């Protein structure tokens, strides 16, 4: 259901009488008209002036267009907001007329070879404007309402529990990839569960929106990392209680050792620090600070990239030497226990059984 918030925003100045009436009607009757719109879909008749439904409302109600919010016509009518788009959308004028439900001038109609071309242009135009609109205050608010209603669905990852996701593009240029879903808890992107979203261009949501959204509405961001450096409080906010778990594979109840070929290799991808201060133990190059104590004083001169390259190699060798010398102790010192790896946690008979298991099955 497309929310009507775009239209009900108080900041909107009144516009020319006729259009305002039509929009008012659409907003009021939107819900009843929705079913009608589905029937009408194939014929695209709703873009004719006889319909009380605006093109935008109709477009947002199409199956597969659930992620779109309604862009206010004011935003589209302001040429500044459309800067640069006219070079990307063919049949610009006709597409604009279609999106804004303006009666086309009769003489021009003959020039258009096929109305479906204008329709795809209108979709492209609306999508690209939508990408810009959802970064504005009004657009973010409209998307926030959809987010709170769970329109975008929730993360498929088991340990993200029911964290809601937002639509996200992998490129700001159209035609690159379809829309994806971004989960603020695992900071990862997922394919929408339904195939009807596979026809929706990711550029219509853009690469920025998902992250600007959670910067704007921090209360929706369940991840503790963002408050870690500033507030310094406990990362276990009520909403993040369930979200820090990382799956631990087990065979007959025993953890699979990382020494096994099929041992865990990807837990880092989902791992969260227990304490925000742990994040500060890694410098801007991604190096543990206490691993090279002697070099700590050189941190400020690190910004010379050439020097860094040389350093990196040296340090890596050193690290390896150190690690092989006393692997167990090193680990404890550097990383105060990565947060509980699984809900069941505690008892873990260890590595040796898996080793047995390997030899048993292969032998």
């Amino acid at each position: 259901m497309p929310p009507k918030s775009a239209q009900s925003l108080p900041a909107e100045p009144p516009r020319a009488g006729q259009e305002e009436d039509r929009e008012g009607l659409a907003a009021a009757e939107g819900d009843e008209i929705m079913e009608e719109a589905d029937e009408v879909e194939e014929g695209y008749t709703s873009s004719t002036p006889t319909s009380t439904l605006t093109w935008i409302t109709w477009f947002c109600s199409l199956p597969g267009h659930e992620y779109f919010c309604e862009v206010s016509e004011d935003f589209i009518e302001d040429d500044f907001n459309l800067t640069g788009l006219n070079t990307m959308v063919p049949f610009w004028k006709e597409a604009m007329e279609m999106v804004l439900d303006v009666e086309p001038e009769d003489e021009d109609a003959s020039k258009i070879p096929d109305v479906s071309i204008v329709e795809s242009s209108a979709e492209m135009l609306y999508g690209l404007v939508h990408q810009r609109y959802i970064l504005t205050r009004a657009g973010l608010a409209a998307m926030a309402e959809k987010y709170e209603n769970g329109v975008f669905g929730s993360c498929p990852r088991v340990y993200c529990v029911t964290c809601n996701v937002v639509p996200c593009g992998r490129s700001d240029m159209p035609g690159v990839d379809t829309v994806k879903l971004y989960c603020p808890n695992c900071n990862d992107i997922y394919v929408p569960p339904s195939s009807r979203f596979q026809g929706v261009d990711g550029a219509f949501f853009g690469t920025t929106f998902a992250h600007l959204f959670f910067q704007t509405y921090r209360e929706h961001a369940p991840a503790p990392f963002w408050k870690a450096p500033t507030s310094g409080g406990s990362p276990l906010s009520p909403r993040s209680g369930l979200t820090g778990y990382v799956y631990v594979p087990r065979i007959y109840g025993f953890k699979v050792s990382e020494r096994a070929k099929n041992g865990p290799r990807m837990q880092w991808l989902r791992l969260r620090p227990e304490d925000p201060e742990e994040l500060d133990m890694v410098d801007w190059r991604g190096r543990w600070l206490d691993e090279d104590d002697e070099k700590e004083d050189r941190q400020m001169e690190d910004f010379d990239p050439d020097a860094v390259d040389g350093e990196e190699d040296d340090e890596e060798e050193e690290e390896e030497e150190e690690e092989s010398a006393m692997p167990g102790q090193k680990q404890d010192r550097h990383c105060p226990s990565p947060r509980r790896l699984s809900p069941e946690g505690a008892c873990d008979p260890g590595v040796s059984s898996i080793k047995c298991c390997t030899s048993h099955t292969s032998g």
Partner: protein
Amino acid sequence: MEDISTGSDSDYSSSWISWFLSSKGNEYFCEVEEDFILDRFNLTGLNNEVANYSQALDLITDNLDDDIQDELRGSLDVQARLLYGLIHARWIVTARGLQKMLEKYKRAEFGRCPRVLCHQQPLLPVGLTDIPYEKSVKLYCGRCEDLYSPKSSRHGSIDGAYFGTTFPHLLFLVYPTLIPPKSGPSDTGSSNREAASGDSRSRRRRDEAEIAEGGGEDINTATVALKAERYRPKIYGFQLHETAKLQRWQEAVRDRQIARLEALEEATRT
């Protein structure tokens, strides 16, 4: 036997198992061979888990008397499903069971990973516990090594204990050559690509040769994590400070594990 079953309840000519496998929502299950079920050793302890155990077992093996069938049929069916599920969990961690599930995995019958950067990696079913009636079945991705919920609610309501916590990990332990690469498109279960390449038969033969059990002594997975792709959130092309910081930390944890594994390998080689 599988070929005969049409999936209709009235099809009494087919066995209970093939009826069960062909009914909707049971796509994740594979066929447990009758020999396995008839060997009572394999069923040790299950009589405590399942009410009407012996009748349920008779129903599964199509040995149930017709006169009992009418009275108990309803409740017995539930018990038979439970019993079959629990036997199934034991069956799929045997050599032949693993092979049957492997075929299903290669056809991507358990679905594909929803994570974009896993490039449609086929999934494997897994339970979060081995005790029935606790948690529904989840799907394990061998590429990102994480768990996902099945897309369809039909599969989302299957008991996870019918697959157990061990199965996917044992599969990759037994077939290390099948451990998915951390980057690039997925090879397993890409039936459409096989068809497109034309030489599907020769390819399959090569696959079968490759996945010989216990093979891949030369496989080294110590540094595979370095190849893993990850998503980097950006606003107007710039990374976010907090996320970038978290990701740097995560990658530092990864690098430390890799250093640890490489050192270990160095130690074992000399």
